[in-house]
């Protein structure tokens, strides 16, 4: 297979960027999308050019490090992460546009790398539980009802990749924040901080410059982990409940 990548190249955070075309040959259908970028970078390095900067880590679809917008879709055409997207999803001769996540809260660092520390700060505002961290607690010391465990697991799948923000026309972090709030709120361990968590995390989310939710549903479609759109409704419910109780 031979494909043409049109990649966003931007030397630094404040530099101007542009789409640059590269032809990549010897692409096989089994290759992951990141391996195509690796192949391109090997050639660029041999040519003495600057390789394309992109984030990646586990390459197993579980860490959330990789993430680029491929042909206008976060993580590309399959419902997975860019590292688990394989070239069999494309055809020989395809022209593929590769862009970084676009959001005011995710400034471009270089090429396809964006600074997602706004997510860390949302987590820091309340995405945790307070518990003694000495020895491991006894199993089943705190009973967790089965439905609560299921809800928590479903939302704990969020890997914080930022595809929801990238896909949202408003650059909103509602699905990410909702995943954390619903995950922790479903568990008895999360109950003591239930109100402060949602108020602080939404406050932080707003301060970081993320947009609001207009219920377009783009985030849930882009999410490689399938966090459901209704998580946002649950987040709104939690916010209104906390606002009533603490105001």
């Amino acid at each position, binding site marked *: 297979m031979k494909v043409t990548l049109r990649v966003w190249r931007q030397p630094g955070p404040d530099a101007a960027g542009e789409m640059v075309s590269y032809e990549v040959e010897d692409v096989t259908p089994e290759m992951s999308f990141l391996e195509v970028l690796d192949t391109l970078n090997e050639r660029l390095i041999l040519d003495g050019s600057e390789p394309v900067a992109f984030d990646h880590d586990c390459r197993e679809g579980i860490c*959330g490090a990789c993430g680029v917008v491929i042909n206008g879709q976060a993580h590309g055409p399959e419902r997975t992460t860019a590292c688990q997207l394989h070239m069999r999803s494309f055809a020989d001769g395809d022209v593929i546009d590769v*862009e970084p996540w676009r959001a005011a809260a995710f400034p471009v660092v270089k090429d396809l790398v964006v600074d997602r520390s706004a997510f860390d700060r949302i*987590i820091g505002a309340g995405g945790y539980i307070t518990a003694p*961290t000495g020895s491991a607690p006894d199993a089943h010391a705190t009973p967790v009802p089965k439905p609560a465990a299921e809800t928590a697991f479903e939302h704990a799948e969020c890997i914080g990749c930022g595809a929801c923000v990238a896909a949202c026309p408003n650059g909103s972090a509602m699905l990410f924040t909702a995943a954390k709030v619903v995950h922790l709120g479903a568990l008895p361990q999360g109950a003591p901080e239930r109100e402060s968590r949602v108020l602080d995390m939404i406050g932080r989310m*707003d301060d970081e410059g993320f947009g*609001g939710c207009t*219920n377009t549903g783009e985030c849930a479609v882009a999410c490689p982990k399938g966090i459901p759109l209704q998580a946002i409704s*649950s987040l709104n419910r939690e916010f209104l409940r906390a*606002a009533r109780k603490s105001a």
Partner: protein
Amino acid sequence: MPRALLTVTVMALTTKSASKPTDGKRAPGKPAPAPDRPKRYPPSLPALLWHSTVGKKTVLAVTGLIMVGYLVAHLVGNLKIFFGAEEFNSYGHWLRTLGGPVLHYEWALWMIRVVLVAAVVLHGVTAYQLSRRDIAARPVAYVHKRRRASYATRTMRWGGVILGLFVVWHILDLTTLTVNENAETGHPYENTVATFSTWYGNTIYITAMVALGLHLRHGFWSAVQTLGAASPARERALRVVTDTSALVLTCGFISIPVAVMTGVVN
């Protein structure tokens, strides 16, 4: 940014794991900026709602639902036009004597008007502020364009502006009768027929009602989602209720100019 470290940090923070020490290591890069929000606890409920995107959306949703409620009552009243001039005009008169003899002539009507104006203003202001925020949150568009979301979803903002302008025309036409050439105070039936006997009256009205249907299709469901009433179990039922009510309201309102045009009402 080393995302693995972040993931580990998140795991340490979000699970009750005892083995992961929080050694103060945080992802390098920019330090967390000082919170610019006033940390006043407890904040008052209006302040909390007004200063947060979710709170503003709550205002948007509640004012929207007030208007949907009004539209239902308005449509039920309007459909009385199919039962003749006498019934429709006496209904118009009843609206003015509503609440009597406790309330003076037109007092109840003015109370409803005050609530509606407040709802329209708050709906418009919050929508404008949220839209400004949303546009600022996505300063750079993607080079690769892809059609996003449904037509109803994409036209919420300008559709809302169209509806606002329509309401102004509608009031000038059938409430104050300023722009209705053949209008007579106290004869709503005849005035309505006069409006829908002109090509521009029909065009403006039907266009606006289609815009209303699209706005409601996304807006009604969106309000339910914003108020936290949506859930996976209710999703299908909610969609049916919101889509049906958007369709019924649109068709109901459009039936009146169509009836005048076809001579059913004259």
